């Protein structure tokens, strides 16, 4: 019984570890937040918990999508159903980074280094949740359309996530607004898209390139392990 479970799970060992660590770090960051609330008696940074919750949604969707992808038959019906909401919620994961701006307000009760660690913990968990869910989606795209399509997908999503962060931070829209006020939002969006400000261009390009950089570096870092553990001599003809 345990043997079969073990052999079933063995090839997914590291995937399960990543999942467990993300759960653990989310829990720990919420605990830190609670400690801060108790020590300071104020409820600053409550929004971090909410943002972390939102950051988990795309990962759940990516898991759902990769289990849909098993049934190749209905792929063309189930995939858009999974990918579009995922894309809507995805920017919530890297969005937590911009919460670092709250450090600039002085909070007298609690030392800065604690707040710094608190926000860092939330932000790193958020980014890594995003990287992990993007990785799951890239895998689906690669299996369906090939390697190059997979990387094009990553770059597109990276750019869109910069746009999403900008929309969330400056226009204060939520992922679900498009469901409740679709026409209004679309009209406003088209207006802003045709009259872009300098601020929006810089913001989007810098944040997008940051996310893409993190993703590619972690990916290359992963393959570095492979290079060193296997030592398969692959010669070029």
């Amino acid at each position: 019984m345990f043997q079969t479970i073990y052999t079933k799970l063995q090839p997914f060992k590291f995937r399960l570890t990543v999942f467990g660590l993300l759960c653990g770090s989310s829990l720990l960051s919420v605990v830190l937040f609670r400690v801060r609330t108790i020590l300071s008696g104020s409820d600053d940074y409550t929004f971090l918990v909410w943002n972390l919750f939102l950051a988990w949604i795309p990962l759940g969707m990516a898991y759902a999508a990769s289990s849909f992808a098993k049934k190749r038959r209905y792929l063309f019906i189930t995939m858009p159903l999974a990918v579009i909401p995922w894309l809507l919620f995805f920017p919530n994961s890297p969005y937590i980074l911009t919460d670092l701006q709250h450090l600039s307000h002085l909070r007298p009760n609690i030392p800065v280094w604690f707040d710094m660690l608190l926000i860092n913990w939330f932000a790193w968990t958020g980014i890594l949740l995003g990287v992990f869910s993007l990785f799951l989606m890239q895998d689906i795209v690669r299996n369906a359309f090939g390697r190059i399509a997979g990387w094009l997908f990553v770059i597109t999503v990276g750019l869109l996530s910069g746009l999403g962060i900008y929309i969330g931070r400056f226009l204060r829209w939520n992922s679900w607004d498009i469901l409740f006020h679709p026409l209004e939002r679309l009209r406003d969006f088209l207006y802003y898209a045709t009259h872009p400000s300098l601020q929006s261009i810089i913001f989007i390009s810098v944040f997008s390139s940051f996310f893409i950089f993190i993703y590619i570096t972690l990916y290359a870092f992963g393959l570095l392990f492979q290079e060193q553990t296997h030592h398969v001599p692959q010669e070029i003809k």
Partner: protein
Amino acid sequence: MYNKLKNLTYRNRHSIAVFFLLNVACLTCIFLVAARVAYTDTTRHTGLIWNLFLAWIPFILAYIAHSISWRRNWVYLVIPIIAALWLLFFPNAPYMLTDLQDLARSGGVGAPLWYDVIIVVWCSWTGMLLGVISLYLIQDIILRNFGRWAGWLFVIGISGLSSFGIYIGRFVRLNSWDILQNPAETTMEILGLVIDPSMRLAAFTVLYTFFFLFVFVLLYSFSHMLQEQTLRAQSTPEQLASTQPTQVNPHP
């Protein structure tokens, strides 16, 4: 000759890619800070560039140690020297995390706040990645020579020491090279901290140790996940790589 070089590059293409990407990240940081300096005429955040430079030192030391570690007779001679230097400079890499406090001091003065946020984020993440990768390289040497458990104990020990190092850098304002310049004084100062630790020191060290360990273990498992994925894909090429649980021989 040309083919040999081509093969060498091809075999090490991922380490070259990581090296290249980190360089690009540093150039981006420098560019962002330079743009801010040019735009606002203040020299705020230029200290970040210096810290980034310091974060590169342990990375390069680890790189050297790792590339010469394949020769057995070098391991016991040269590596300890490099490792000692590496240990001294290592805390500079995760130290970048605490540069976020620049935001608390002077965020949003002169330039928009979000711009300061992204400068600090780029720098601190680059520093952390430099630290994680250099620790990985050193851990790999230890894994090969002394086994798995030694490697992980080493990582835990280093995380604790590095958070202590961050504390020393942040609150006592000592530099890595102070121990070489006036060893007696610096040792006394550090001993004083260790013998009579304050509440702040304990809380700071414990929390940053956990944070660094979390980041390291997570990036480690994430990277091995990629490997797992390719193993599964290789064992059954006709099946979907991500979805079908297949029997994988653990010792290929």
